């Protein structure tokens, strides 16, 4: 009975922590919602259209982050099946895809600045918004990479399975959110590129 109560209490506490992650995602969502509605308000002004062909690398980075979501999903599945080695493999793949995403995003911004001549300080701030969306999302990606790293490193420390699953769930919620957030921003920019 003691053990049962203890497990219940731990489950309860983990549940609260997972819920905390969801609320954090809400705050983050509101932040990007504010930025994109700021964009809508701003670009509604005269001569404030974006008028930028969204550079190709953004498409590649989008594909990379979608794949990373799939590998993370496979890692979760492996974790649930107690296949720790497989879980570690897929977590590392996800982690490096995340770094690849980061690199491609930075490259895309490089293309914007140096190949296309769209500067951060463009008088038309709609164009600055491109960098702001990308940069603010990358800040979140850094946090996401740290969460992934924490999750994968924990698997080497032989933590209880409950904890492992919990960490996987936390990492999944956050990373999939970042994935969806970027897809949203990318589609938003595609729709507004004229």
């Amino acid at each position: 009975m003691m053990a049962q109560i203890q497990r219940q209490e731990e489950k309860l506490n983990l549940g609260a922590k997972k819920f905390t992650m969801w609320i954090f995602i809400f705050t983050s969502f509101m932040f990007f919602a504010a930025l994109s509605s700021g964009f809508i308000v701003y670009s509604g002004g005269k001569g404030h259209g974006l008028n930028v062909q969204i550079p190709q690398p953004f498409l590649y980075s989008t594909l990379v982050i979608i794949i990373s979501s799939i590998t993370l999903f496979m890692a979760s599945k492996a974790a649930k099946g107690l296949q720790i080695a497989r879980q570690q493999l897929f977590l590392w793949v996800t982690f490096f895809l995340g770094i690849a995403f980061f690199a491609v995003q930075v490259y895309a911004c490089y293309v914007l600045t140096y190949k296309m001549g769209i500067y951060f300080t463009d008088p038309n701030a709609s164009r600055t918004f491109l960098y702001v969306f990308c940069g603010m999302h990358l800040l979140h990606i850094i946090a996401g990479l740290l969460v992934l790293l924490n999750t994968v490193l924990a698997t080497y420390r032989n933590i209880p399975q409950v904890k492992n699953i919990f960490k996987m769930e936390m990492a999944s919620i956050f990373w999939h959110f970042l994935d969806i957030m970027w897809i949203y921003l990318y589609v938003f920019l595609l729709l507004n590129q004229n």
Partner: protein
Amino acid sequence: MSTLAVHDHGVVHHEEGHEHHHKATFLNTYVFSQDHKYIAKQFLVTGIIMAFIAMTLSILFRIQLAYPDKSFPILETLLGRFAPNGRISPDFYMSLVTIHGTIMVFFVLTAGLSGTFANLLIPLQVGARDMASPFVNMLSYWFFFIASLIMLSSFLVQKGPASGGWTIYPPLSALPKSMPGSDMGMTLWLISMVLFIASQLMGGINYISTVLNMRTKGMDLWKMPLTVWALFLTAVLGVLSFPVLVAGVVLLIFDRSFGTSFYLSDIVLNGKVMPFEGGSPILFQHLFWFLGHPEVYIVIMPAMGLSSEVLAVNSRKPIFGYHAMVYSLIGIAVLSFIVWGHHMFVTGMNPFLGGVFMITTLIIAVPSAVKTFNWLATLWRGNIRFTPAMLFAIGMVSFFISGGLTGIFLGNAALDINLHDTYFVIAHFHLVMGSAAIFGMLAGVYHWFPKMYRRMMDERLGYLHFWLTFIGAYLVFFPMHFMGLDGVPRRYYAFTEFESMKRWLTVNVFITWAAIMAGIAQLAFAYNFVHSIFWGKKTVQNPWNANTLEWTAPIEHIHGNWDGEIPTVYRWPYDYSKPGHDTDFIPQNVPFSQTMSSNLPHDFEDNPGGLEEHTKWTNAQKANEAVK
């Protein structure tokens, strides 16, 4: 059975403790404490200190307003370069107004109010051992503390603190060279506010998660006290709106320091044309007021919750319309997100859009009126005990009514064209969210002081404090309505400079002396507060005979709040003066089986077994009567 359960729990608690096992040191008990009760006290004391600082700032600019031509050498001694020749400089006057507003709105009435009472009351009233994440909760306080220090440190920089108003509209806030306060002071303001928002988000996430996940057995949402409802919805508002301010501030920082043009356009500064083009200052106002309007409800809703509880306890009556109170809180919370445009009626907004914002704004009068009528109906024919907390709660209702009525004028787009940015606005929001919220906070402090410090506050000083503050606040703010109607604009440095404003100078003298009186009255509170912490009368377990769970927790503070099992909740928190019961209150943890004589059929709406028992019992009583 119950001993077994208690025993089990003791073991569990012990084992739980193993994971984060810390020895109790001075640092983790009194400084970086993770105990929600202690963090609440940290928030309260910091909030009170900030309130005194912001009040002193207001007295300083009130002196300037009353005596614009007089020189007070003492001011130069105190303020140095900010008051050359004993007169507050125009730039410093603007700084005073700005920092007074910032500290009062954010540091006192957001962090000081929500931070204190959400931390103290949420775990204790829902029956939890602590917050969902005590560590994040501790971080929340220390971020707030550092934000406070940075905000105050802006008084130490050469050019003085931020001075563009607490709403920091660009372009003034975006161009460091536009005036002295826009330089280093503004930078510090922005850093401080970013830390402050981080603190509020960490706190808010914790409050929401605790309320939704960690309630004790039997505590369903409809058995929560209104304090918890209010603090919960406040946290929801904060979590949804503060990130929007971050977005606005991030863009502002880019404009200030990186040369972008989000908010800046066609600027000529000191005769030089600036390179900014195409920016829209209105964009900032949208982003700011999307936070800014929910923010005023973040300020008032905890005060509403605290007052509801204090009014019900001290009227010895159930709160009138408990469900209506909850739904009106929800209504206010939802509506607060679709009214921000009423701060922007004179920005050249499309009149049709203005009309939409006007309608949504005026609809807020409905839930607000529901709350007001319910408070009055709670008082009506109550067995009222006029404790200091009760007086402050009634004062809160009074200010909410008198300040709320003028909100209906200001929410009207056509009237607002005249009243915008006049003293009428100052009068309105100082009554409805300033005084009302501070009175709700003080009601909370007087009421829950025994829970926080295990001692009682002195009642007589409390009464003195209440009457001087109550009268003082009305004397200060009521005349401002008439100044506003006469078109006197806010934030003006010297009324002597304008022919049309000169006749209000005598009124300014009156207001200033009323403010000084109300300010001195706060010393009665400060003395009472500090003195009672150390030498107040020791409290009993349940000093106000209240129903909520916090009064079942031991007087001595222990980590985990209750030793042994957390009490189970059986009933709503407002069973005061229930007919047929021998005392005039039944705490939430008393099961219906122990109160057969006072049970009513509707106590068993979703409990057919209980209803059957109840019917059996009443029939038996009737049979007994018949035999007699």
